[in-house]
């Protein structure tokens, strides 16, 4: 129990608490929230954001940032749509190719960051421009995907009680989260990411493969963004070059609200999962409300972000102070 409530877990506990309170609050106001449908929709509507946030979690844990995720989502969507609808590829092949493109874009950014020590926000800023530019180059119009295989994917559901159902997006989201939680906790890669975020120089001195891990982190984030794009195109049955505009901010917000320290080293994939749910609940709640407009979502996210940052700041100061007094 003591370990459970330790200093490191405090941000994540706060996140879970906020999530539960928001859900209960929304449920008391709009009884529809307590059906199985709303939680299931929360998962499927936010699957692409969730997958992106999972990849970004590793980046932020390593002490970096990836601004290219949103435009990579857009690029992936338009690429799949273009390849299937215009080039006549089989969707499975198109999806595979898109995921490879995502990994490559991430890997190149990783090289710039790990090998040439370019500030992550600048390198990924280049990625942001690049992906959006290429996406718009492919097509400025939204492309509908008519392929039967794709339709099947989009319509595939596993019914759950109460009229709710599990979609492909939900499945992918849950699988990615599960694997990522395991990676973060139980693989050398995951632990190295934490070590780098804690102190890069120390991680190097401990003999951990810092450069290689950083490369993988950005490649992983590229993969997750591309997968997010795939899910988005399945969700909308189309590809759109401007899809995912500003999504990097939502994803960063989800990660930070999930208790991951923006300076790296502390946090968890599970936290980001809950963070995504919080964003989803806010969005759903505001749309249920009807009178509140959608921009309240942004403001609410901004306020939550501020609160969590100040909380983190306070915790860092507190731990710094306690170290001084015990040292």
């Amino acid at each position, binding site marked *: 129990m003591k370990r459970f409530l330790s200093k490191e877990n405090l941000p994540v506990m706060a996140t879970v608490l906020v999530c539960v309170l928001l859900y209960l609050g929304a449920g008391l106001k709009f009884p529809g929230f307590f059906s199985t449908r709303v939680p299931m929709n929360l998962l499927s509507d936010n699957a692409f954001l969730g997958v992106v946030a999972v990849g970004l979690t590793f980046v932020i844990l390593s002490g970096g940032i990836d601004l290219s995720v949103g435009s990579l989502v857009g690029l992936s969507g338009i690429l799949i749509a273009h390849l299937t609808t215009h080039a006549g590829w089989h969707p499975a092949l198109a999806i595979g190719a898109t995921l490879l493109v995502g990994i490559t874009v991430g890997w190149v950014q990783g090289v710039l960051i790990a090998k040439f020590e370019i500030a992550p926000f600048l390198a990924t800023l280049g990625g942001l421009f690049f992906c959006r530019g290429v996406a718009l180059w492919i097509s400025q119009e939204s492309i509908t995907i008519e392929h039967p295989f794709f339709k099947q994917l989009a319509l595939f559901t596993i019914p759950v009680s109460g009229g709710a159902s599990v979609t492909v997006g939900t499945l992918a989201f849950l699988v990615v989260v599960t694997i990522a939680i395991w990676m973060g906790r139980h693989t050398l890669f995951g632990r190295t990411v934490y070590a780098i975020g*804690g102190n890069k120089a120390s991680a190097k001195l401990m003999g951990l493969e810092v450069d290689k891990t950083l490369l993988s982190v950005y490649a992983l984030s590229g993969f997750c963004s591309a997968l997010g794009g795939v899910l988005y195109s399945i969700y909308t049955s189309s590809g759109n070059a401007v899809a995912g505009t500003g999504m990097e901010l939502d994803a960063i917000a989800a990660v930070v609200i999930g208790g991951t320290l923006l300076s790296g080293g502390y946090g968890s994939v599970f936290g980001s999962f809950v963070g995504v749910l919080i964003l989803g609940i806010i969005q759903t709640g505001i749309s249920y409300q009807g009178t509140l407009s959608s921009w309240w979502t942004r403001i609410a996210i901004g306020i939550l972000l501020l609160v969590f940052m100040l909380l983190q700041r306070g915790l860092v100061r507190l731990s710094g102070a306690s*170290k001084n007094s015990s*040292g």
Partner: protein
Amino acid sequence: MAVDSTAQTELLTLRRIEKRFPGMIALDGVNFTLKAGEIHALMGENGAGKSTLIKVLTGVLPLDGGEILLDGQAICPASTFAAAHLGIRTVYQEINLATNLSVAENVCLGQFDARRVGLDWKGMIRLGEESVAKLGLELDVRRPLSDFSVAIQQMIAIARAIAVTPKVLILDEPTSSLDSAEVDQVFRVMRKLKDLGLGIVFVSHFLDQIYAVSDRITVLRNGKLVATSPISEMGPQDLVRHMIGHSPSEETPIEREPTASSVKPEPIIRAKSLSRRMSVDSVDLSVGPGEVLGLAGLLGSGRTETLRLLFGVDAKDGGDLEFNGKPLTRWNCRKAIRAGMGFCTEDRKVSGIIPELSVRENILLVLQARRGILGPLPKRQQQELALQLVKKLRIATTDVEKPIQFLSGGNQQKCLLARWLVIEPKLLLLDEPTRGIDVGAKAEILQLIVELRKQGMALIIADSELSELLRVCTSTAVMRDRKILQTLPTSELTEERVMALMAEGNV
């Protein structure tokens, strides 16, 4: 378990080690041996070559000459990992571990080949517990490292180092940030490891610590081996003399200053039991116009820390400070400068120069800061002022608009002095004003200090070169263990006496 010294095997042998850097010889034919089951203290002041020796030994720097034998085999580690693989492990003063990870991970990660896909947490925890138990510690290895005190973290660093078949353990100032109870804990661990047959190289500034655990001492100075002998044959006084003693070759052409007039002037600054946890312990001092107080002491004795407290860089947590007869509360750098103080720090690069800015801008920075945002000097006046100082201090630069980073160390140091002289301070604090600069510049700076004193400025100088201190100071305070032991007029002091004080704490 006492082992007969003749039975001890030579574990590590360094022969005629040479290491050169551009413009200097860092190690000049150094010999060093380490036996299994001994703690060997490696001593020397800054620039003596001990950290270079450690770097060569652990594969951080390549050798320029000589050979390293481990268990009789010649080795040539190309990296710290290669050295670690051979069984040579280092633990540094700064804890190079991931404080956000658990103790078990800090002991195990990166040490073993991970062939499995996932981590073997159970195995890590078991191994972590075993290694920690080897040091006689008992703690929950699942907790993050940051939960523990620095001393425990230091010992976990040691636990990591010995987790994989070590032969040689190098402890580079492991005790610098620990209090005495924690130091004892580390010593217990060191003795335990010694009994296990490890050879330990121990680096520390604290003499009593050296005498508490070491079996042998090796002293380096200016890249050369000065002495090696069993602890019983080298008393503290000998040790200090070996480390910092006067050697005729370093003589600079300056006459020793006679002590100032016997009439004690009204002090400009006076400190009473000035204290700060872990850095300065109850320091009393007072300096008046035309006086130069020298702070003598080994590294870590509290010299720099005292200056930082006086200038308001760090906050005191006890004692009183008076400047010009007025008590000072909520003291900070800006107030100190406004009151008429200046402070030249010991590390030019980190806290002195602003590398990209020009010589002119660097020299006039303090003046400009004091004049405020709305009071910039006209460019022409700036150039005149800067040129004036460049001439006065004989700073070798053709152009005051040149970025200061392109000047030599000695000239940078003179610029930093100029930065403070511009505001004509009443009290100037100098921390190692002659470190890392050439002999000519050294002499000029010492001469300048004498001139400033004659003009009625008060100065406090921390310097590890005793001969320099005794030449320019009117009185000298000997520091040891964060305290001032004694303050004496320089006329009553000799290098021998100061060294005796530094070594023994009494005369």
